[in-house]
């Protein structure tokens, strides 16, 4: 298993820049998520690590060795494709043994290894079937089998659950994570599904337009977003953005929105101009004593909680509140925010302003 280090990685397709100067480090044994909307460069980044695309510039280190310009076959990594890419003219056993055959492993050894992998994945009963008739989940398992059979230095997975239906995806995600925990293999996983990323990843890189927006543990990315994009992309519903004009200085712990003062984490940098007051829906509460009021537009019932949409003076916002709290559309309510969780952003650049909350995260992000 191996540590993967990416330095100033860049990829251009003609005039189009798919990945702009990315740098990050994947620790040995980490389950690492590349997250972003489609076209953000996450798949290109993964393909460069795998050797399916050659970077325009920059370096890739796998286990300390620079492999940026080496062909995929020499990198000793495994790749799980979204559409599985099982060899259609071979049966399950042949598919799984194919990477071993290329290494010239003796036949008896290959059989033994394939049997071992089939056992781990629970596909012993389909081992001699052609891959054509398999269900999505079994194809996925065969694709995983082909990846793990070789004990590669690292796994690359390109939306491996994307082709499965929703119900099964959850189950497969658990299986994948359990497999990873058992093998402890460095895994790089591409997804556009933020829930999947939060659920499975040890670390997440959030990309947008070929640029890394933030890099860190799921909790940090959720609680301490470095940019407006991350705050908006992560979380469902996303973070609320209340736009206002004002100024802060190091040491400030209050801001004024529409004549009402709200506490925020102690600021560490000065800023003056258009700002965004960012607060997650679960940190918004209804408070009759608050003078900052808004009209309830809608309520969505979700079981234990409900999401209510409120038209507040600085824009629309959503709050996640217990479902036993009764609210009616049209009603005007007072709003309170959990001060310790608020992030202020520069509205123009989208950058989060450093505060006591996020200073630890932003310094290396």
């Amino acid at each position, binding site marked *: 298993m191996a540590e993967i280090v990416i330095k100033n990685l860049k990829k251009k397709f003609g005039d189009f820049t798919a990945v702009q100067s990315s740098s990050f480090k994947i620790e040995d044994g980490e389950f690492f998520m590349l997250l972003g909307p489609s076209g953000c460069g996450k798949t290109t980044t993964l393909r460069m690590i*795998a050797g399916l695309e050659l970077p325009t510039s920059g370096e890739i280190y796998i286990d300390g060795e620079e492999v940026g310009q080496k062909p995929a*076959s020499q990198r000793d990594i*495994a*790749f799980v*494709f979204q559409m599985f*890419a099982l060899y259609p003219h071979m049966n399950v056993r042949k598919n799984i043994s194919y*990477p071993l055959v290329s290494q010239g492993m003796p036949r008896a050894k290959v059989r033994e290894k394939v049997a071992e992998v089939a056992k781990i994945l629970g596909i012993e009963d389909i081992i001699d079937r052609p891959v054509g008739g398999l269900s999505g989940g079994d194809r996925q398992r065969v694709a995983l089998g*082909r990846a793990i059979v*070789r004990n590669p230095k690292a796994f690359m997975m390109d939306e491996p659950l994307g082709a499965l239906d929703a119900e099964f995806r959850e189950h497969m995600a658990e299986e994948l994570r359990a497999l990873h925990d058992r093998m402890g293999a460095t895994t790089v996983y591409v997804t556009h599904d933020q829930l999947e990323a939060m659920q499975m990843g040890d670390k997440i890189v959030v990309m947008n337009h070929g640029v890394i927006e933030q890099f860190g543990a799921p909790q940090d990315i959720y609680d301490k977003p470095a940019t407006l994009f991350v705050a908006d992309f992560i979380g469902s519903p996303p973070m609320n953005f209340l736009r206002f004009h004002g100024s802060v200085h190091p040491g400030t712990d209050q801001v004024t929105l529409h004549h009402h003062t709200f506490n925020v984490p102690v600021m560490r940098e000065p800023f003056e101009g258009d700002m965004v007051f960012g607060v997650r829906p679960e940190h918004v509460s209804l408070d009759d004593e608050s003078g900052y009021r808004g009209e309830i537009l809608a309520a969505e019932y979700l079981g234990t909680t409900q999401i209510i949409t409120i038209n507040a003076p600085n824009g629309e916002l959503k709050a996640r509140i217990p479902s036993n709290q009764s609210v009616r559309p049209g009603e005007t309510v007072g709003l309170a925010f959990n001060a310790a969780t608020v992030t202020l952003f520069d509205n123009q650049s989208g950058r989060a302003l450093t505060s006591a909350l996020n200073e630890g995260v932003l310094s290396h992000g």
Partner: protein
Amino acid sequence: MSSFSITEPSRTQKWVAGALVVGYALITLLPLIWILTTGFKSPVDAISYPPKVFFEPSLEGYVNLFTTRTRVSPEQLQALPPPASWYEEIVRNRDMVIAGPSRYGERFLNSVIIGFGSTFLSVFLGTLAAYAFSRFKVPLKDDLLFFILSTRMMPPIAVAIPIFLMFRSLGLSDTHLGMILLYTAVNISLSVWLLKGFIDEIPREYEEAALIDGYTRFQAFYKVVLPQAATGIASTAIFCLIFSWNEYAFAVLLTSGTAQTAPPFIPTIIGVGGQDWPAVAAGATLFLVPVLVFTILLRKHLLRGITFGAVRK
């Protein structure tokens, strides 16, 4: 029949449809049946009017196809020892003796060499070119593909004279190599375009998976892409073979001796000893066999090939 329905057709509908199919099949098969039966007729039956549907089968046409014969006087015939074989007997009945084998065998072999040789070459080069066009950044790709297609934009025979002169000065006239190269040149555009379509349909992930699994680009092509493209290769091969096998005009123009193929030879059979229609028909019948066998062997692939792209995997 006013509205479209997917219910089982009625008995009458089935009967009408069946009759139409059988009728159409009969019309298209009639010339073939004519050729097939004429080959087994005697020369008199072959030209009788009205045509004879029922006749006494004879192998005279096939014997005449494979032999050259000389007429002898009845006295000379009497002096000869009795015929040693059934075919000699057929010939003697016409007051003739066998002088030697005809050239049909040689011409047929030429057709096999040239037809299959050019088919192999067209498909081999076509597959490599199609793969490259499908997968790699080729400078001026679109222009090159258009150029390759443009060789089909006029009938090949339109350039017969330049080709004739070119072949003469290159010493390719009446050679197997020359004909193989010529038919390959005509077929290659079809082959590249057809195969590019097939290879485009094969997801790149298969090769990428093979690359990751430790195979080189060529191994990935050979072990993963080729088996996937087998359908396309088979149907392309059939199309190429049908063209080069049946080609007549260039064969007449460019071959006369060593490399003459069967199509220009078959009509000349008629000139040997009168209007020998059964021999011509026999030659044409045998000439159909290789393409038929080849097509039947690849039929499984051909069916899928014709419907390629119709169904998304």
